[in-house]
């Protein structure tokens, strides 16, 4: 008997409970949309959008540099300073946390698990909330912003650093143990040289993120370019909003390009 090759290709079997998933999704979306009060837009919405657009296209160039201060350049410089210092503080503090959370350094799963838990809790509190707290402690100003960024970044940097330590090659450590090195020598000659490029690269990556965060800290009074922006928004000075937005976009783009180029050479 000849074998027939011409048979229909079967369509893959569908999950019988597929419709249940769709139903649940539909229910979630109905719940979500029903809860949002759609009251229509303000009549002025189009007008203000136009004003901001013309503000961006024809910015208030005089604001770039004012001799008496409170200008764009100084605001951007302060933003940069906040994120540099914040990143530096968090890098210093997160290193012990990273060794605590790395399972091959702390030795036991329980210890490293507790470290990872602590880091994820720190990560979960938004920097802007931390800034609100620090404003209560050290008063409004860019120092509160520095501390907020420094504390919040520990969460992410600590986790990335711990991953980097866990992924390192065991060979050099064992070689040093065989030569009778003590723990400090082991750390200095076997661990640090392996993890340093990764640490630096992650630090720069976090610096890029902190630049973005630093631009919003001013919204609640923690320094940086956000303060003049909120002021310009509330006084409806759209030209100024335009130039500040432009300044933020240009600064962050430059930082991203620079930091990306350095990171590419590091790893």
């Amino acid at each position, binding site marked *: 008997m000849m074998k027939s090759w011409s048979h229909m290709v079967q369509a893959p079997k569908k999950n019988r409970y597929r419709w249940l998933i769709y139903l649940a999704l539909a229910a979630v979306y109905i719940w*979500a949309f029903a809860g949002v*009060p759609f009251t229509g837009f303000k009549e002025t919405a189009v007008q203000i959008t136009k004003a901001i657009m013309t503000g961006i296209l024809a910015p208030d160039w005089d604001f770039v540099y004012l001799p008496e201060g409170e200008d764009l350049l100084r605001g951007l410089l302060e933003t940069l300073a*906040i994120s540099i210092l914040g990143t530096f503080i968090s890098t210093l503090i997160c290193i012990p946390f990273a060794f605590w959370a790395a399972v091959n350094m702390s030795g036991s799963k329980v210890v490293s698990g507790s470290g990872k838990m602590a880091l994820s*809790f720190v990560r*979960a509190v938004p920097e802007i909330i931390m800034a609100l*707290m620090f404003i209560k402690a050290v008063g409004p100003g860019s120092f509160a912003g520095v501390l907020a960024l420094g504390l919040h970044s520990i969460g992410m940097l600590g986790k990335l650093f711990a991953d980097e330590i866990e992924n390192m090659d065991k060979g050099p450590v064992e070689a040093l143990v065989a030569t009778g090195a003590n723990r400090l020598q082991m750390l200095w000659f076997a661990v640090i040289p392996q993890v340093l490029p990764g640490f630096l690269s992650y630090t720069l990556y976090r610096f890029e993120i902190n630049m*973005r965060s630093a631009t919003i800290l001013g*919204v609640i009074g923690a320094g940086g370019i956000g303060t003049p922006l909120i002021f310009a928004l509330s006084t409806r000075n759209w030209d100024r909003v335009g130039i500040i937005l432009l300044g933020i976009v240009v600064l962050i783009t430059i930082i991203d390009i620079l930091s990306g180029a350095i990171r590419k050479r590091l790893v």
Partner: protein
Amino acid sequence: MSAGAELKRPKAPSKLKHYLTAAIVVLLLWGSSIQTDATLGELIEGFPNMFDLLREMFPPKWTYLDNIVGAMLDTIRMALIGTTLGAIMAIPVALLCAGNLMAQWWLRYPVRFVLNLIRTIPDLLLAAIFVAIFGLGPLPGIFALSIFALGLIAKLTYEALEGIDRGPLEAMTATGANGIQRIVFAVIPQISAHFMSFTLYTFEINVRAAAVLGLVGAGGIGHYYEITLGFLEYDKTSVIIIFTLSIVLLIDYASSKLRGKLL
């Protein structure tokens, strides 16, 4: 013995570059601390205040939970709608950006440039601007989140699109399929799981972002931080923080489990 003298020791690599880098870093830090008026003394002075604050935050006033559950649900709604709108807008944008599907470079590069610009603006700033345009309420928050989601999902998706297998595309071309058919039968099956995963990931980020948008008047639970901190009711603030944390961690956990199943 004399042979040993001829075998010169290799020179250590120059350390000048490292010294220069260290000098630049120190200079940057020094300049930054002047610019921000950051002094250790101020920190030590402020430290007792921090502890006072923490002491006043505990024990949390759990009865306040009743007041903020509604706002928390609003926050999740905002994140959900914002992410969905952003994901829908991201589909055509990602297709425009993918080099292997869109041959017209003069269309591709400007769109990518605009995407990069969008991603430089933090969501809280977008929200502040949208509040100025549309007025207070969750609507400007949703718009801000959807613009942010558009930037992120479109970038991740177009990078994934450029990595797809060319085989099915060529097979479709060989059978004479048109552009739409190529996308529906050769691109979407390869990319849909990634796209869902990116969307879920963005949803996780947006839930965190939505929780603070209220600080600029864009709806959600963030508004309650200002109320409680303004009235110095720190025991209520700690309830908000703990509640938000647990919801965020819960959503993160569920979403990352789902993403693990998708891929």
